[in-house]
Structure formats: C-alpha cells, structure tokens
C-alpha cells in the first residue's frame, strides 16, 4: 500500500488505512521517539500520543511536503512537550567557544544505529534535545530556541557541550574496545 493511498484513506477515517500507517511508520517514528526519551517505555507512550495527533492533524497535512518529515515533527514536538521542555534548564551553559576536535577516527563510522543512539541517550536531557534537533533533524539554532523557549546562544552552548560529551564517550568506547 503506497503512501498516498494510506494518507487519503486516513483522511477519510478508514481504520484499515490508519492501521497500515501505524504498521508502516511505527519503526521509523519509534527511533525518533527514543532519541528524545529516557527509555523505550517513555518512547512508546510518546509514540502512541504522537500517532493520535497525527491522525487528528492529518487534514492539515498538505501533500506538497514530505509526509515522513511531517510525522517526525509531530513526534519530536510530542516528545518535547512530554518532558515539558524543561530539562535543559537544569544544566550548565557557557561553552559557546568550545572547539571541537576536527580529527575523528574513521572507525567511528562503524558504530551501528543502536550504539549511536545509546551514546546520544546518555547525554543529559537538555544537551540531547539540542543535539537531536540540530544534528539529526537539521533545525537552526534560532528554530531550536523557539521550540525550546531558550536563547540562540544557549542552544549553541548546549550543542557544543553535547558534542564534547559525545566525543569523549566515543573515544573512551574506542579505547575500551582496543
């Protein structure tokens, strides 16, 4: 069943197509939900809530855009709302001038998705949110600021810090492996 058929069927409220949509996209959207969650059980709740929103908002979806990207946004916003967008406020700022190491071992590319996701999930919540929004979803700092209700500079510092922590995690993981 192709995407367009599913969308049209869902807009008409036909259960068969709604179920098809869940079956087709739940895996991909679960990945998104997991990246913003503490663990899988939270991710499952978020995904469930997000799907309800997707179905209820489907009339507003315009077919000019990428459907997957539209659903991802809903999952992201649901997750952020779920955790009340507040976690980053508990963390420290002040790394605007942090310089990343530009030299990354190519072996890092061998990490699979689950491993990378685990490392990202080990980041403090605020850093994780900014990292996910900026790096994975491609939001600008200005947009992140609006979504999380923080300043652009805060978003930058959170990202820098997240990168630093992630880099350290990967380096130590590599050492352990070696």
């Amino acid at each position, binding site marked *: 069943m192709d995407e367009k058929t599913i969308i049209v069927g869902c*807009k*008409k*409220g036909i*259960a068969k197509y*709604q*179920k098809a949509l*869940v*079956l087709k996209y*739940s*895996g*991909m959207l*679960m*990945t998104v939900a*997991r*990246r913003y969650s503490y663990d899988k059980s939270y991710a*499952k709740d978020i*995904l*469930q809530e997000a*799907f*309800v*929103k997707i*179905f*209820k*908002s*489907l*009339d*507003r*979806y*315009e077919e*000019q*855009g*990428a459907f997957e*990207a*539209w659903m991802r*946004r*809903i999952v992201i*916003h649901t997750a952020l*709302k779920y955790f009340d967008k507040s976690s980053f406020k508990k963390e420290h700022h002040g790394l605007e001038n942090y310089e*990343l*190491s*530009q*030299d*990354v*071992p*190519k*072996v*890092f*590319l*061998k*990490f699979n*998705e689950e491993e*990378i*996701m685990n490392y990202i999930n080990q980041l403090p919540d605020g850093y994780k949110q900014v990292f996910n929004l900026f*790096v*994975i979803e*491609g939001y600008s700092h200005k947009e992140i600021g609006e*979504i999380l209700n923080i300043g652009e500079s805060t978003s930058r510092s959170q990202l820098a810090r997240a*990168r630093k922590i992630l*880099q350290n995690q990967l380096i130590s993981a590599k050492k352990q492996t070696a």
Partner: protein
Amino acid sequence: MNWNFFENYHARKLKEYSSEVNAEELWQAIEPQIQAKKDRHGLWFLFPLLCLGAFSYLAFYTTNTELEEEEEPSMVSTSLNNMVVQEAKHVPLIPTKTNEISTVKKALSSAPSFFTEKKDLPEKNSTSYKKQLQNLALQKTLQNLNTQNSTISTKSNLSESRTLKQNKSNSLETDFSEKGNSFIQKESISKLAIIRPTIFKQEKLNTDYTIPVLEIEKIILPSKRLFSFSLGFEIGLGYSIKDYSEDTENMDLINFMKRIESPLESTGAGMTFEVKHRSNFFLQTGINYSRFNQRIKLDQVIPGTVQTENAIVELYTNSNGEVIPILGLGSETVERLYKLTHYNFHEFISVPIMLGYEFKKKSLSLSPLIGINFNLVHNANGIQFSGNNINSKFDLEDSDWFDSRTSLSYHIGLGINYQLKESFNIGLKPYFNFQKNDINSSINPLEQGFKTFGMSIISSYSF
C-alpha cells in the same frame, strides 16, 4: 575524517533507522482514541423542542377549548366570569316623561347589557376618560333603549332572546339580543366589552318629566387569553472574539512560522415560535441555522526533497578498514516556505430554548430574554488558497474538529419590537452568545468557549 562528516553520516543513518516496535500492540492502543465518537444526538437534541411543542399544544388546546365553549351560550358565563370588571359611573339620562319611567326601567331590566367593541372604549389614561365613557354609555344605552322599546310591545320577541344565567360572582342576569349574540364569535370575543347600565335614581324636573340617572354598573372587558402565540423569522450577523493565546500547540505541530487568525464571523437565520403567558412572560423556541467563517493566514514551512549530487549513496570499506563514503546523486530534505490562507466554515443547526419578559408601551416593546441553544454541527469544511495558486477544498472530519457534534451555548438577547399592525411586529435583537461546549479536541479552533456578539432583524406574527 572531520566531526561534521561523522555527524552527518550518523544523522542520515539514524533518520532511516527503524526501531523494533510491536506495531500491532501499538495500533490496539491507538485505535480507540482516534475513532470518531458517534453521538446519539438525534433524540436528545429534539427533546427540548418536543417538550415545548407538547407544552404549546396543551396551552393552545386549553385556550382553544375556551373559545369553542364560548360558542355555547351556557358557557358564556364562564368567559364573562374571567372578564375584568371596571368602574361604575352615574350618568344622567335624558329627561323622560314620568309615565314613561316604567318603560325605561322595563327596557333596561329586560336588556340591561350590551356589547360594544373594545376599540370604541376611550383610552383609560386620557384626561376626559370619564366623560367619554359616560357619553359612550349614554349613546349605547339610548340605542339599546330604542331597540328595546320596539321589542317591549312584542313580548314574543323577548321570549325568543336567550337568557343566560350568568355567574358565580355577581349573579348578573343578562338577556341580549340576537345582535349581541352575533358578536360572540370565536374571533371577536377578545375585542368586545360589555357595558351594563341600570337606573340609579330618578330626579324629578317637574310633574311631567323625570330625569333617570343611569348608572353604568359595570364595564366588563374580556380577559386576555391565558396564552398567545407568535411565529417569527429572524436573520442576523455575528462577530466572535476569540483568544488564541492557548492555540500554540497547533502551530508547533504543523510548523507555522507565522499565523494570523481572524475572529469568527457568523451569519444566521431562523424561525422562532413563541408562547406568551398573559403575565407577559414568554417561552421561545425554533430552529436556527448559523455559519461561522474563520480565516487563517499563515506562513508554513513544509519539508520537501530535492535532488543533490553530494548525497552519500554508499560506504566503501577499503583493505585498511577505512570507511570511505561515496557521494552521488541522491535526495536531500529541504524546507520551503508556503504562504497559505485557510477559510474554515462551520455550519450549526440550533434549537433555542429562551425565557423572556415583554415590557410593552403602546406599540413599542422591549423583550429581554435568556436561555440556551442546543447546537448540532451540521457541516464543517474549508477551502485553502496557497501562494502557488493551487487551491483546494476539504472537509473537516468530525473526529478531528469535534469530539462531539453537539454542544450548548448560553444566549442573552434584547428584543426591541415595534407593532406595525395589530398582529405584526418587526424588531431588532442585539444578542450575546457564549459557546459552552464539550468540544475538547486539542487541535480544534473552536475548542475554546468563544463569545459572539450579534444583531438580528426579527419579524413576527401573533395569533
């Protein structure tokens, strides 16, 4: 390899990665939440209408029975007992020869009362009310006297006239001529008054003439009917002020960069049916159609894909274990800005139940009223105009826009009516409507109790 490449590489992989999830179980949890709630709105929606209909029928039946019974002479007394008895006045009658006094007495006793049209009665508030009343009474009495003089000589005529035993309260015994009887029609009884004259005293002018002083013992006005009815038509415009400050979640969901929503503008028309008690309290119902229009202007960022030559299409691992990305033609997600204008239309069918009171002064009346509307969403649809001239119409699914298609709204209005003719009124009705609903969908623009100010033009016919 630099850090940015590492990030982009894994970001791409993560975007495409599908986690393990029990989709069947997930669907089981979602399904009950997204299925449209089917309201059994039909019966309860009509319930208030049925109640008022039944009440109206009973009220009408009661009134109608009374009118029908008035056609039976034996029941006229019932009607007369309900009539309003006004003041008594002494009126000097014309000088009459002494030997004719007995004739006058006899005439009056045999036919002491007569009917006149209520509209012929003087205005009660006028300064010359008493004088006008006396003149009227005198005129009517003389007319009656003349008639009776002609019938006195033929007693058979009198015996043919109907005799009515009148009453519990004043034991008035009234004969009336066929002419009087002809007034007692179902249609005209409410327009009649009864004047009952009698001789109060006699004053002698001289040996030949005596002045009988006529007493207008009673003026009996028909009582108002217990209930009166009217049918009306109204058409109006409304304007709703809505607070969108809470409506931010929707913006997040569909990524509006800028969003301007107009207040709701509404148009409506309807039929009204009113039952008014003689105390001037009234109940009003009917059926109304209203249409709410909402305009939303927005800038929306919509992701799309474009072809690029620098996409990572493959990863190659060489003999040294180094992973080398191979770039090539592929797709890349980009965001485009669309300027859109949405028009959402919501059509309601409403049944109002209003309670009001009429303050009337001559032809002008003020009727404050308060009540509730039972609303049913009849239709919801919209149209969208986009910047690229691709316009589309769409239906708004019930399940998306309303958790329930039925809702309640509170209504306060003030009818300002002018009586054009005896039964025909026109007027204006400014009103305020507050939507107290059970619509609680988080994406519904009508979810918050919106307040509507409006003005209706009314015309009504009373019967």
